[in-house]
Protein backbone atom coordinates (compact mmCIF):
# COMPACT_ATOMS: atom_id res chain seq x y z
CA UNK A 1 0.00 0.00 0.00
CA UNK A 2 2.74 2.34 0.99
CA UNK A 3 4.67 1.54 -2.11
CA UNK A 4 1.62 2.17 -4.32
CA UNK A 5 1.12 5.56 -2.72
CA UNK A 6 4.74 6.40 -3.26
CA UNK A 7 4.32 5.31 -6.83
CA UNK A 8 1.30 7.53 -7.23
CA UNK A 9 3.00 10.63 -5.88
CA UNK A 10 5.95 10.01 -8.18
CA UNK A 11 3.53 9.88 -11.12
CA UNK A 12 1.89 13.06 -9.97
CA UNK A 13 5.20 14.82 -9.69
CA UNK A 14 6.33 13.63 -13.10
CA UNK A 15 3.12 14.74 -14.79
CA UNK A 16 3.29 18.09 -13.01
CA UNK A 17 6.81 18.63 -14.28
CA UNK A 18 5.63 17.67 -17.76
CA UNK A 19 2.75 20.11 -17.62
CA UNK A 20 4.97 22.96 -16.47
CA UNK A 21 7.48 22.21 -19.20
CA UNK A 22 4.82 22.05 -21.89
CA UNK A 23 3.25 25.27 -20.68
CA UNK A 24 6.53 27.16 -20.57
CA UNK A 25 7.36 25.79 -24.00
CA UNK A 26 4.00 27.06 -25.22
CA UNK A 27 4.53 30.47 -23.68
CA UNK A 28 7.97 30.63 -25.24
CA UNK A 29 6.71 29.75 -28.69
CA UNK A 30 3.90 32.27 -28.34
CA UNK A 31 6.46 34.90 -27.32
CA UNK A 32 8.66 34.15 -30.32
CA UNK A 33 5.68 34.09 -32.66
CA UNK A 34 4.42 37.38 -31.32
CA UNK A 35 7.60 39.30 -32.09
CA UNK A 36 6.93 42.25 -34.32
CA UNK A 37 8.90 42.28 -37.55
CA UNK A 38 10.99 45.38 -38.23
CA UNK A 39 10.06 46.91 -41.54
CA UNK A 40 13.23 47.64 -43.51
CA UNK A 41 12.41 50.61 -45.72
CA UNK A 42 14.42 51.57 -48.75
CA UNK A 43 13.79 53.12 -52.16
CA UNK A 44 12.68 50.72 -54.91
CA UNK A 45 15.75 51.56 -57.00
CA UNK A 46 18.03 50.12 -54.29
CA UNK A 47 16.71 46.69 -55.27
CA UNK A 48 16.27 43.66 -53.05
CA UNK A 49 19.43 41.72 -53.76
CA UNK A 50 20.08 40.81 -50.15
CA UNK A 51 19.56 37.78 -47.98
CA UNK A 52 18.50 37.91 -44.36
CA UNK A 53 19.38 34.62 -42.64
CA UNK A 54 16.25 32.56 -42.00
CA UNK A 55 17.34 31.99 -38.39
CA UNK A 56 17.69 35.70 -37.69
CA UNK A 57 14.67 37.63 -38.92
CA UNK A 58 14.77 41.37 -38.25
CA UNK A 59 12.41 42.18 -35.38
CA UNK A 60 11.71 45.35 -33.43
CA UNK A 61 12.91 43.80 -30.17
CA UNK A 62 16.00 42.36 -31.83
CA UNK A 63 16.92 45.66 -33.44
CA UNK A 64 16.48 47.57 -30.18
CA UNK A 65 18.61 45.04 -28.32
CA UNK A 66 21.24 45.22 -31.06
CA UNK A 67 21.26 48.98 -30.78
CA UNK A 68 21.86 48.79 -27.03
CA UNK A 69 24.68 46.31 -27.61
CA UNK A 70 26.21 48.49 -30.32
CA UNK A 71 26.65 51.18 -27.68
CA UNK A 72 27.60 48.78 -24.84
CA UNK A 73 31.12 49.17 -23.44
CA UNK A 74 30.80 46.00 -21.36
CA UNK A 75 31.44 44.15 -24.61
CA UNK A 76 35.08 45.27 -24.47
CA UNK A 77 37.70 43.64 -22.28
CA UNK A 78 38.38 46.83 -20.30
CA UNK A 79 34.82 48.16 -20.41
CA UNK A 80 36.16 51.22 -22.18
CA UNK A 81 34.99 50.96 -25.79
CA UNK A 82 31.88 49.94 -27.70
CA UNK A 83 31.23 49.48 -31.42
CA UNK A 84 30.47 53.18 -31.46
CA UNK A 85 34.02 54.09 -30.50
CA UNK A 86 35.13 53.28 -34.06
CA UNK A 87 31.74 53.76 -35.73
CA UNK A 88 30.27 57.13 -34.76
CA UNK A 89 26.95 58.08 -36.26
CA UNK A 90 27.97 61.71 -36.85
CA UNK A 91 30.79 60.47 -39.11
CA UNK A 92 28.56 58.01 -41.00
CA UNK A 93 29.78 55.36 -38.54
CA UNK A 94 33.52 55.88 -38.98
CA UNK A 95 35.91 57.40 -36.45
CA UNK A 96 37.89 60.01 -38.36
CA UNK A 97 41.20 58.22 -37.68
CA UNK A 98 43.59 56.33 -39.98
CA UNK A 99 43.61 53.44 -37.52
CA UNK A 100 41.38 52.90 -34.50
CA UNK A 101 42.36 52.49 -30.88
CA UNK A 102 41.41 49.18 -29.29
CA UNK A 103 40.43 48.33 -25.73
CA UNK A 104 44.11 47.93 -24.71
CA UNK A 105 45.21 51.14 -26.43
CA UNK A 106 46.77 49.34 -29.40
CA UNK A 107 45.96 50.22 -33.00
CA UNK A 108 43.93 48.25 -35.53
CA UNK A 109 45.69 47.21 -38.72
CA UNK A 110 43.15 48.82 -41.06
CA UNK A 111 40.91 51.86 -41.05
CA UNK A 112 37.39 51.69 -39.65
CA UNK A 113 34.73 51.39 -42.38
CA UNK A 114 31.46 53.24 -42.75
CA UNK A 115 28.39 51.22 -41.76
CA UNK A 116 25.88 52.39 -44.33
CA UNK A 117 23.65 50.10 -46.37
CA UNK A 118 25.27 46.93 -45.04
CA UNK A 119 22.02 45.16 -45.89
CA UNK A 120 23.32 44.93 -49.47
CA UNK A 121 26.87 43.88 -48.63
CA UNK A 122 27.64 40.20 -49.09
CA UNK A 123 31.35 40.03 -48.17
CA UNK A 124 32.47 42.12 -45.25
CA UNK A 125 35.70 43.91 -44.29
CA UNK A 126 38.34 45.53 -46.48
CA UNK A 127 39.29 42.07 -47.75
CA UNK A 128 35.78 40.60 -47.97
CA UNK A 129 36.66 37.68 -45.71
CA UNK A 130 33.36 37.44 -43.89
CA UNK A 131 30.16 36.24 -45.60
CA UNK A 132 27.53 37.69 -43.24
CA UNK A 133 26.92 40.35 -40.62
CA UNK A 134 26.44 37.62 -38.02
CA UNK A 135 29.87 36.21 -38.84
CA UNK A 136 31.47 39.62 -39.19
CA UNK A 137 30.52 40.83 -35.71
CA UNK A 138 32.71 38.34 -33.89
CA UNK A 139 35.92 39.80 -35.36
CA UNK A 140 35.81 43.29 -33.80
CA UNK A 141 34.30 41.91 -30.60
CA UNK A 142 37.13 39.47 -29.98
CA UNK A 143 40.18 40.90 -31.81
CA UNK A 144 42.75 41.89 -29.16
CA UNK A 145 43.37 45.19 -31.01
CA UNK A 146 39.67 45.97 -30.99
CA UNK A 147 37.23 45.05 -28.23
CA UNK A 148 39.33 42.06 -27.19
CA UNK A 149 36.82 40.01 -25.23
CA UNK A 150 35.82 36.37 -25.78
CA UNK A 151 32.14 36.07 -26.67
CA UNK A 152 31.62 33.72 -23.72
CA UNK A 153 32.82 36.48 -21.40
CA UNK A 154 30.53 39.00 -23.10
CA UNK A 155 27.55 36.66 -22.62
CA UNK A 156 28.46 36.27 -18.94
CA UNK A 157 28.82 40.02 -18.36
CA UNK A 158 25.50 40.75 -20.05
CA UNK A 159 23.78 38.01 -18.01
CA UNK A 160 24.96 39.70 -14.83
CA UNK A 161 23.57 43.04 -15.95
CA UNK A 162 19.92 43.48 -14.92
CA UNK A 163 19.10 45.27 -18.17
CA UNK A 164 19.79 42.49 -20.61
CA UNK A 165 18.22 39.10 -19.69
CA UNK A 166 14.63 40.34 -20.14
CA UNK A 167 15.55 42.03 -23.43
CA UNK A 168 17.14 38.84 -24.76
CA UNK A 169 13.99 37.00 -23.63
CA UNK A 170 11.86 39.41 -25.63
CA UNK A 171 14.05 39.24 -28.71
CA UNK A 172 14.94 35.57 -28.74
CA UNK A 173 12.47 33.87 -26.41
CA UNK A 174 14.97 32.96 -23.72
CA UNK A 175 16.66 34.99 -21.02
CA UNK A 176 19.70 32.71 -21.14
CA UNK A 177 22.11 34.87 -23.14
CA UNK A 178 24.15 33.06 -25.76
CA UNK A 179 27.11 34.21 -27.86
CA UNK A 180 25.11 33.57 -30.99
CA UNK A 181 22.32 35.88 -29.85
CA UNK A 182 24.74 38.74 -29.25
CA UNK A 183 25.92 38.46 -32.86
CA UNK A 184 22.37 38.13 -34.13
CA UNK A 185 21.09 41.20 -32.31
CA UNK A 186 24.01 43.35 -33.48
CA UNK A 187 23.39 42.19 -37.05
CA UNK A 188 19.71 43.04 -36.84
CA UNK A 189 20.54 46.59 -35.78
CA UNK A 190 23.18 46.96 -38.48
CA UNK A 191 20.71 45.89 -41.19
CA UNK A 192 18.59 48.90 -40.29
CA UNK A 193 21.41 51.39 -41.00
CA UNK A 194 20.00 52.38 -44.37
CA UNK A 195 21.20 55.59 -45.99
CA UNK A 196 18.82 56.72 -48.71
CA UNK A 197 18.23 60.40 -47.97
CA UNK A 198 21.10 62.21 -49.71
CA UNK A 199 20.65 64.96 -52.28
CA UNK A 200 21.79 62.38 -54.82
CA UNK A 201 18.82 60.16 -53.88
CA UNK A 202 16.53 63.19 -54.17
CA UNK A 203 18.08 64.03 -57.54
CA UNK A 204 17.39 60.48 -58.78
CA UNK A 205 13.83 60.83 -57.55
CA UNK A 206 13.48 64.13 -59.43
CA UNK A 207 13.25 66.15 -56.23
CA UNK A 208 16.58 67.94 -56.18
CA UNK A 209 18.13 70.23 -58.75
CA UNK A 210 21.94 70.00 -58.59
CA UNK A 211 24.02 73.14 -59.08
CA UNK A 212 25.78 73.60 -62.41
CA UNK A 213 29.04 72.57 -60.78
CA UNK A 214 27.48 69.44 -59.27
CA UNK A 215 26.10 68.48 -62.66
CA UNK A 216 29.52 68.90 -64.25
CA UNK A 217 30.93 66.73 -61.44
CA UNK A 218 28.23 64.11 -62.01
CA UNK A 219 29.12 63.92 -65.72
CA UNK A 220 32.81 63.51 -64.93
CA UNK A 221 31.97 60.89 -62.29
CA UNK A 222 29.95 58.81 -64.73
CA UNK A 223 31.97 59.23 -67.93
CA UNK A 224 35.04 57.31 -68.96
CA UNK A 225 37.55 59.60 -70.65
CA UNK A 226 37.39 59.46 -74.43
CA UNK A 227 39.71 62.16 -75.77
CA UNK A 228 39.20 61.11 -79.40
CA UNK A 229 35.51 61.96 -79.12
CA UNK A 230 36.03 64.97 -76.91
CA UNK A 231 34.49 63.35 -73.81
CA UNK A 232 36.16 64.17 -70.54
CA UNK A 233 35.70 61.88 -67.60
CA UNK A 234 37.07 60.53 -64.35
CA UNK A 235 35.46 57.07 -64.70
CA UNK A 236 34.64 56.91 -60.96
CA UNK A 237 31.27 55.32 -61.70
CA UNK A 238 32.93 52.27 -63.22
CA UNK A 239 33.61 50.99 -59.70
CA UNK A 240 31.60 53.34 -57.50
CA UNK A 241 28.51 53.81 -59.65
CA UNK A 242 24.89 52.88 -59.18
CA UNK A 243 22.15 54.33 -57.05
CA UNK A 244 23.74 53.16 -53.79
CA UNK A 245 27.18 54.48 -54.86
CA UNK A 246 28.41 51.00 -54.12
CA UNK A 247 29.34 47.93 -56.10
CA UNK A 248 30.76 44.95 -54.33
CA UNK A 249 34.21 44.89 -55.94
CA UNK A 250 37.79 44.33 -54.85
CA UNK A 251 40.61 46.13 -56.63
CA UNK A 252 44.23 47.13 -56.30
CA UNK A 253 43.91 50.87 -56.79
CA UNK A 254 47.58 51.61 -57.27
CA UNK A 255 48.50 52.97 -53.85
CA UNK A 256 51.92 51.28 -53.77
CA UNK A 257 54.19 49.46 -56.18
CA UNK A 258 55.07 47.07 -53.35
CA UNK A 259 52.18 46.71 -50.93
CA UNK A 260 52.78 46.51 -47.18
CA UNK A 261 49.32 44.99 -46.68
CA UNK A 262 48.54 42.03 -48.94
CA UNK A 263 44.81 42.72 -48.72
CA UNK A 264 42.48 40.13 -50.18
CA UNK A 265 45.37 37.77 -50.93
CA UNK A 266 45.58 37.01 -47.20
CA UNK A 267 42.07 35.60 -47.38
CA UNK A 268 41.95 33.93 -50.82
CA UNK A 269 45.58 32.76 -50.95
CA UNK A 270 45.68 33.82 -54.60
CA UNK A 271 48.64 35.96 -55.63
CA UNK A 272 46.49 37.77 -58.17
CA UNK A 273 44.59 39.21 -55.21
CA UNK A 274 47.62 40.99 -53.77
CA UNK A 275 46.78 44.45 -52.45
CA UNK A 276 43.21 44.12 -53.59
CA UNK A 277 40.80 45.81 -51.21
CA UNK A 278 37.11 46.50 -51.10
CA UNK A 279 35.94 49.33 -53.30
CA UNK A 280 34.16 51.15 -50.49
CA UNK A 281 30.82 52.88 -50.68
CA UNK A 282 31.01 56.56 -51.57
CA UNK A 283 27.87 57.24 -49.61
CA UNK A 284 28.68 60.01 -47.09
CA UNK A 285 32.22 60.07 -48.43
CA UNK A 286 32.79 63.67 -47.32
CA UNK A 287 32.22 62.53 -43.72
CA UNK A 288 34.44 59.48 -43.72
CA UNK A 289 38.00 60.85 -43.98
CA UNK A 290 40.73 59.76 -43.75
CA UNK A 291 40.60 57.56 -46.84
CA UNK A 292 41.86 54.16 -48.04
CA UNK A 293 42.33 50.96 -46.03
CA UNK A 294 45.19 52.57 -44.12
CA UNK A 295 43.71 56.04 -43.90
CA UNK A 296 46.70 57.52 -45.71
CA UNK A 297 44.78 60.37 -47.34
CA UNK A 298 43.43 63.01 -45.00
CA UNK A 299 41.35 64.85 -47.59
CA UNK A 300 39.22 64.07 -50.63
CA UNK A 301 41.54 66.33 -52.66
CA UNK A 302 44.42 63.96 -51.93
CA UNK A 303 42.26 61.04 -53.06
CA UNK A 304 41.45 62.77 -56.36
CA UNK A 305 45.13 63.66 -56.82
CA UNK A 306 45.98 60.00 -56.30
CA UNK A 307 43.63 58.78 -59.01
CA UNK A 308 44.59 61.66 -61.25
CA UNK A 309 48.36 61.50 -61.19
CA UNK A 310 49.85 59.08 -58.65
CA UNK A 311 48.70 55.57 -59.63
CA UNK A 312 51.55 53.14 -58.87
CA UNK A 313 52.20 50.23 -61.20
CA UNK A 314 52.31 46.67 -59.87
CA UNK A 315 51.42 43.23 -61.24
CA UNK A 316 47.94 43.28 -59.70
CA UNK A 317 47.04 46.91 -60.41
CA UNK A 318 43.42 47.08 -61.55
CA UNK A 319 43.06 47.03 -65.34
CA UNK A 320 40.51 49.82 -64.98
CA UNK A 321 43.18 52.21 -63.70
CA UNK A 322 45.62 51.60 -66.52
CA UNK A 323 45.92 53.56 -69.72
CA UNK A 324 42.92 55.73 -69.09
CA UNK A 325 43.47 59.39 -69.75
CA UNK A 326 41.78 62.53 -70.91
CA UNK A 327 44.78 63.14 -73.17
CA UNK A 328 45.35 61.07 -76.32
CA UNK A 329 47.77 58.26 -75.38
CA UNK A 330 48.17 59.82 -71.94
CA UNK A 331 49.35 57.80 -68.95
CA UNK A 332 47.44 59.65 -66.28
CA UNK A 333 43.86 60.73 -65.94
CA UNK A 334 44.82 64.38 -66.48
CA UNK A 335 41.86 66.14 -64.93
CA UNK A 336 42.15 69.88 -64.42
CA UNK A 337 42.00 71.59 -61.05
CA UNK A 338 38.50 72.85 -61.89
CA UNK A 339 37.35 69.37 -62.83
CA UNK A 340 38.56 68.03 -59.50
CA UNK A 341 36.57 70.75 -57.74
CA UNK A 342 33.52 69.79 -59.81
CA UNK A 343 33.91 66.16 -58.70
CA UNK A 344 34.16 67.23 -55.07
CA UNK A 345 31.00 69.31 -55.47
CA UNK A 346 29.24 66.20 -56.76
CA UNK A 347 30.56 64.05 -53.90
CA UNK A 348 28.97 66.49 -51.43
CA UNK A 349 25.63 65.39 -52.90
CA UNK A 350 26.27 61.91 -51.45
CA UNK A 351 26.13 63.17 -47.87
CA UNK A 352 22.98 61.96 -46.13
CA UNK A 353 22.36 64.26 -43.17
CA UNK A 354 19.18 62.42 -42.22
CA UNK A 355 21.27 59.26 -41.80
CA UNK A 356 23.75 60.82 -39.40
CA UNK A 357 21.02 62.43 -37.31
CA UNK A 358 18.43 59.64 -37.37
CA UNK A 359 17.43 59.17 -33.71
CA UNK A 360 16.74 55.47 -34.38
CA UNK A 361 20.48 54.91 -34.78
CA UNK A 362 21.70 56.92 -31.80
CA UNK A 363 22.87 55.77 -28.38
CA UNK A 364 19.77 54.43 -26.58
CA UNK A 365 21.34 54.10 -23.14
CA UNK A 366 19.77 56.58 -20.72
CA UNK A 367 23.13 57.67 -19.32
CA UNK A 368 25.87 57.53 -21.85
CA UNK A 369 29.32 57.44 -20.36
CA UNK A 370 31.64 60.17 -21.55
Amino acid at each position, binding site marked *: MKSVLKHKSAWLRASLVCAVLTLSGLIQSIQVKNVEPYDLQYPANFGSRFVIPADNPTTKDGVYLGRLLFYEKALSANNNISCESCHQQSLAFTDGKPFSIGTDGSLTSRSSMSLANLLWVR*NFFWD*GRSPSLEDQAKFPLTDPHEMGQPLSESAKKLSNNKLYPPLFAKAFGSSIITQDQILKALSQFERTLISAGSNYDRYLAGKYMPTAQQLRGLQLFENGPDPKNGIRGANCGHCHGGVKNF*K*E*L*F*HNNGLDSVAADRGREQFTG*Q*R*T*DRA*RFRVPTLRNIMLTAPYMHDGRFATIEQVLDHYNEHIQ*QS*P*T*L*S*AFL*QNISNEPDGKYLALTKEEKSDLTAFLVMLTDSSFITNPAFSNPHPISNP
Partner: protein
Amino acid sequence: MLSPKIFKHSLAATVLLFLSVTFSLFAQNTATLSISGEVATPLELKIADLASFKQLSHKVKDRDGKEHEFSGVALIDILEKAGVTIGSKLRGENLAKYLLISAADGYEVLYSLAEIDPDFTDQVILLATTKDGQALANGEGPFRIIAPNEKKAARWIREVRSMKIGFAKN
Protein backbone atom coordinates in the same frame (compact mmCIF):
# COMPACT_ATOMS: atom_id res chain seq x y z
CA MET B 1 78.60 54.70 -72.29
CA LEU B 2 75.41 54.34 -70.30
CA SER B 3 75.07 56.88 -67.55
CA PRO B 4 74.68 55.24 -64.13
CA LYS B 5 71.18 56.73 -63.83
CA ILE B 6 69.93 55.23 -67.09
CA PHE B 7 71.63 51.97 -66.21
CA LYS B 8 69.86 51.95 -62.86
CA HIS B 9 66.53 52.64 -64.52
CA SER B 10 66.91 49.93 -67.14
CA LEU B 11 68.02 47.51 -64.46
CA ALA B 12 64.94 48.34 -62.43
CA ALA B 13 62.77 47.92 -65.52
CA THR B 14 64.32 44.53 -66.28
CA VAL B 15 63.78 43.35 -62.74
CA LEU B 16 60.18 44.56 -62.81
CA LEU B 17 59.59 42.83 -66.15
CA PHE B 18 61.14 39.61 -64.87
CA LEU B 19 59.04 39.79 -61.73
CA SER B 20 55.82 40.40 -63.59
CA VAL B 21 56.52 37.58 -66.07
CA THR B 22 57.26 35.07 -63.31
CA PHE B 23 54.31 36.41 -61.37
CA SER B 24 52.04 35.97 -64.32
CA LEU B 25 53.31 32.42 -65.02
CA PHE B 26 52.86 31.53 -61.39
CA ALA B 27 49.35 32.94 -61.37
CA GLN B 28 48.47 31.02 -64.55
CA ASN B 29 49.61 27.74 -63.09
CA THR B 30 47.80 28.00 -59.81
CA ALA B 31 44.57 29.75 -60.73
CA THR B 32 41.52 27.56 -60.71
CA LEU B 33 38.01 27.86 -61.99
CA SER B 34 35.28 26.24 -59.93
CA ILE B 35 31.96 25.01 -61.32
CA SER B 36 29.37 24.32 -58.66
CA GLY B 37 25.68 24.47 -57.79
CA GLU B 38 23.11 22.43 -59.70
CA VAL B 39 25.69 20.14 -61.28
CA ALA B 40 26.19 16.37 -61.25
CA THR B 41 29.97 16.76 -60.78
CA PRO B 42 31.45 19.90 -59.25
CA LEU B 43 34.70 20.82 -61.02
CA GLU B 44 37.92 22.64 -60.10
CA LEU B 45 39.69 23.31 -63.37
CA LYS B 46 43.23 24.52 -63.96
CA ILE B 47 44.43 25.85 -67.30
CA ALA B 48 46.12 22.51 -68.03
CA ASP B 49 42.83 20.64 -67.54
CA LEU B 50 41.34 22.43 -70.54
CA ALA B 51 43.74 20.68 -72.95
CA SER B 52 41.45 17.63 -73.02
CA PHE B 53 38.55 19.72 -74.39
CA LYS B 54 37.96 20.61 -78.03
CA GLN B 55 39.83 23.86 -78.76
CA LEU B 56 38.26 26.70 -80.69
CA SER B 57 38.74 30.40 -81.29
CA HIS B 58 36.82 33.56 -82.15
CA LYS B 59 38.09 36.66 -83.93
CA VAL B 60 36.27 39.59 -82.35
CA LYS B 61 36.62 43.29 -81.73
CA ASP B 62 37.41 43.91 -78.07
CA ARG B 63 36.83 47.03 -75.98
CA ASP B 64 39.95 48.62 -77.46
CA GLY B 65 38.18 48.66 -80.84
CA LYS B 66 40.76 46.28 -82.33
CA GLU B 67 40.23 42.76 -83.59
CA HIS B 68 41.79 39.97 -81.51
CA GLU B 69 41.78 36.22 -81.78
CA PHE B 70 40.65 34.59 -78.55
CA SER B 71 41.14 30.85 -78.08
CA GLY B 72 39.92 28.41 -75.51
CA VAL B 73 37.06 25.95 -75.14
CA ALA B 74 33.31 26.17 -75.60
CA LEU B 75 31.53 27.09 -72.38
CA ILE B 76 28.89 24.49 -73.15
CA ASP B 77 31.54 21.73 -73.11
CA ILE B 78 32.54 22.72 -69.58
CA LEU B 79 28.90 22.61 -68.50
CA GLU B 80 28.50 19.22 -70.11
CA LYS B 81 31.53 17.89 -68.24
CA ALA B 82 30.00 19.09 -64.97
CA GLY B 83 26.76 17.31 -65.81
CA VAL B 84 24.56 20.38 -66.16
CA THR B 85 21.07 19.79 -67.59
CA ILE B 86 21.70 20.92 -71.16
CA GLY B 87 20.74 19.48 -74.55
CA SER B 88 17.80 17.08 -74.30
CA LYS B 89 17.51 17.79 -70.56
CA LEU B 90 17.08 21.52 -71.03
CA ARG B 91 13.31 21.56 -70.80
CA GLY B 92 10.58 22.02 -68.22
CA GLU B 93 11.80 23.46 -64.93
CA ASN B 94 15.41 23.31 -66.11
CA LEU B 95 14.61 26.30 -68.31
CA ALA B 96 14.51 28.32 -65.10
CA LYS B 97 18.18 27.57 -64.43
CA TYR B 98 20.94 30.13 -64.78
CA LEU B 99 24.70 30.31 -64.81
CA LEU B 100 26.16 32.98 -62.52
CA ILE B 101 29.77 33.78 -63.40
CA SER B 102 31.95 35.58 -60.84
CA ALA B 103 35.28 37.31 -61.41
CA ALA B 104 38.20 37.70 -59.02
CA ASP B 105 37.24 41.33 -58.43
CA GLY B 106 33.67 40.45 -57.48
CA TYR B 107 32.08 41.38 -60.82
CA GLU B 108 29.24 39.05 -61.74
CA VAL B 109 27.22 38.31 -64.86
CA LEU B 110 24.46 35.86 -65.55
CA TYR B 111 23.33 33.74 -68.49
CA SER B 112 20.28 31.55 -68.63
CA LEU B 113 21.22 28.03 -69.67
CA ALA B 114 19.24 28.41 -72.89
CA GLU B 115 21.51 31.31 -73.92
CA ILE B 116 24.46 28.93 -73.92
CA ASP B 117 22.95 25.75 -75.34
CA PRO B 118 23.57 25.13 -79.08
CA ASP B 119 20.03 23.69 -79.42
CA PHE B 120 18.77 27.21 -78.68
CA THR B 121 21.40 29.51 -80.15
CA ASP B 122 24.07 29.67 -82.83
CA GLN B 123 26.33 31.74 -80.63
CA VAL B 124 29.19 29.63 -79.25
CA ILE B 125 30.26 31.27 -76.01
CA LEU B 126 33.95 30.81 -75.43
CA LEU B 127 35.86 30.31 -72.23
CA ALA B 128 39.03 31.93 -73.51
CA THR B 129 42.52 31.41 -72.14
CA THR B 130 44.62 33.07 -74.84
CA LYS B 131 44.48 36.27 -76.87
CA ASP B 132 46.45 36.50 -80.11
CA GLY B 133 48.38 33.42 -79.07
CA GLN B 134 49.42 34.78 -75.68
CA ALA B 135 48.09 33.68 -72.31
CA LEU B 136 45.59 36.26 -71.07
CA ALA B 137 47.26 38.94 -68.97
CA ASN B 138 46.73 39.63 -65.29
CA GLY B 139 43.50 41.48 -64.82
CA GLU B 140 42.01 39.75 -67.87
CA GLY B 141 42.84 36.07 -67.40
CA PRO B 142 43.59 33.37 -66.94
CA PHE B 143 39.94 32.72 -67.92
CA ARG B 144 37.65 35.11 -69.76
CA ILE B 145 34.25 34.75 -71.38
CA ILE B 146 33.84 35.83 -75.01
CA ALA B 147 30.30 36.00 -76.37
CA PRO B 148 30.95 37.00 -79.99
CA ASN B 149 27.40 37.96 -80.98
CA GLU B 150 26.84 40.33 -78.08
CA LYS B 151 27.10 43.95 -79.21
CA LYS B 152 28.00 45.11 -75.71
CA ALA B 153 30.98 43.41 -74.06
CA ALA B 154 29.68 43.75 -70.51
CA ARG B 155 29.19 39.99 -70.17
CA TRP B 156 32.64 39.25 -71.58
CA ILE B 157 33.67 38.82 -68.00
CA ARG B 158 37.39 38.80 -67.21
CA GLU B 159 39.30 36.97 -64.48
CA VAL B 160 36.60 34.32 -64.19
CA ARG B 161 37.00 32.50 -60.92
CA SER B 162 33.76 30.66 -60.35
CA MET B 163 30.63 29.54 -62.12
CA LYS B 164 27.52 28.55 -60.28
CA ILE B 165 24.45 26.92 -61.74
CA GLY B 166 21.29 27.85 -59.88
CA PHE B 167 17.53 27.75 -60.07
CA ALA B 168 15.67 31.03 -60.21
CA LYS B 169 13.56 30.83 -57.06
CA ASN B 170 10.84 33.38 -56.88
